[in-house]
């Protein structure tokens, strides 16, 4: 496995409170890795530490280069995309302008494919084309999630961090989102690090899963293995053995 992203001993936190206590994780080329864990396990912080939006220490190598001390903007320009929790919509800009922001953020070498890529996005998410003149803040949660994904994809990242894409979505929309993710990996030659509470759905699209609990990696295995391990899911993912997710407070 060629490691596109290699992380060893990553620690991070907010103020004096440490949230991540030495995380080791790797993502290979064209691989989808699901980061699972209950609320507060450190999934979001892990993604933020990788994209440089939260201070961290430890070794992070992306495409063979160390990201230590690199600013968030520079990390993004280096090909690491991040669809943040809350979707990061530019609410006062139109849907089309949100899409265009992705396009102008891509590396120069992919400028020629921009028009084709935009067309591809509008084919994947036809509703965005219909709404392109509307302010993005007026979109529904699911539509904003599609928009966030589109914006990040159009910047042509090599690795995309996606934080809780199913959060706040109706179950049906959320299922759509996961099936789209599986397609996107091949269409856009992507690697994906997907943080999710919904273990069942994300393990269906992922190659491997990593389980976090209280800021530490407690399990790391191929997705099928994790999906079959009911004891693990019950212990760390807040799922009862019948597979229903408990409502966490």
């Amino acid at each position: 496995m060629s490691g596109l992203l290699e992380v060893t001993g990553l620690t991070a936190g907010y103020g004096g409170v440490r949230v991540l206590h030495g995380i080791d994780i790797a993502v290979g080329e064209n691989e989808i890795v699901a980061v699972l864990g209950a609320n507060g396990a450190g999934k979001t912080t892990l993604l933020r530490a990788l994209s440089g939006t939260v201070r961290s220490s430890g070794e992070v190598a992306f495409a063979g280069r160390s990201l230590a001390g690199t600013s968030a903007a520079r990390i993004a320009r280096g090909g690491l995309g991040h669809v943040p929790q809350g979707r990061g919509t530019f609410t006062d800009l139109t849907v089309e302008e949100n899409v265009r922001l992705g396009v102008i953020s891509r590396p120069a070498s992919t400028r020629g494919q921009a028009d084709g890529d935009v067309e591809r996005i509008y084919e994947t998410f036809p509703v965005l084309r219909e709404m392109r003149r509307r302010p993005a803040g007026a979109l529904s949660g699911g539509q904003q999630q599609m928009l966030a994904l589109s914006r990040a994809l159009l910047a042509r990242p090599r690795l995309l961090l996606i934080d809780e894409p199913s959060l706040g979505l109706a179950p049906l929309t959320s299922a759509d989102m996961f099936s789209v993710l599986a397609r996107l990996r091949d269409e856009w030659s992507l690697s994906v690090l997907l943080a999710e509470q919904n273990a069942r759905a994300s393990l269906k699209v992922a190659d491997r899963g990593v389980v976090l609990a209280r800021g530490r990696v407690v399990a790391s295995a191929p997705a099928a293995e994790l999906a079959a391990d009911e004891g693990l899911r019950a212990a760390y993912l807040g799922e009862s053995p019948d597979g229903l997710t408990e409502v966490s407070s």
Partner: protein
Amino acid sequence: MSELLQQTVSGLTTGLVYAALALAIALVFQGTGTLNFAQGEFATLAAFVSFALSTAGLSWWLIVPVLVVLAFVFGAGVERLLVRPVEGNGPLALLTVTAALLLGTNAVVALIWGTDVRSMPSPFGDAVHHVGPLTFTAQALGGGALVLTAMVLCGAIFRFTPLGLRLRAVADNPDSARLLGISTGLMLAVGWGIAAAVGAVAGLVAAPTLGLSPELMTNALLLALAAVTLGGFSSRLGAVVGGLLIGVLSNLASRYVPGIGGDLQLVVPFAVIFLVLLVRPQGLFGRPSAVRA
């Protein structure tokens, strides 16, 4: 009737200064959420620099573009060196810095050029044009063209260029902009630079009519703030229209409303603003942010 028109024209002429300054204030506010109280003093400084350049014998055709570039660099530099370090300390700290910049810039101008009022020649000459019953000074026409150009250029940059899109993205959601690789710090500096360049236009338009002194923009700043409120902080067009409206209103009131002389005319625009804010708090052209709950 023709006198009413003439009064309106002369109100528009004063309004141009407020309009340009209001546009500059709106640009910084939209980009950073901060009111730059020093915007007027930046304009005064630009007016003095243009005066110095013209005394040195440069042609106005050269001075205007040079001034705009210098102002841009100055504005961006001030953001980088003086505003950036306190940026993380909250909006009140930023406001305090811009107030300090107001006093500081004013003092520097007074130190270099003194406090006497000087007369500055109009960059557009002293010609007077007659159109039907109305008279236009060359300064009014040239100033109008200059402010209009500044407004259209700003609009074009923000609407149609990748730079403008990045500037608006940073203003809208800086965290998300960073995740797209946009350098937010650079964009803030550019925003301040563009605002200072527009402010320089305000200085050029103001100085020949009001007389060049460190107090050039003292009143104009208050009226420009009023203009931005009137037009709406979220609208560049609103800021310009607000500035022109305030110019016209105060001029007409002082001429036609008994008891309101030259000094009391300032009361009129503020009464109007009070009414506008009661009825339409986002200003005439502003729109409330469209965010779905």
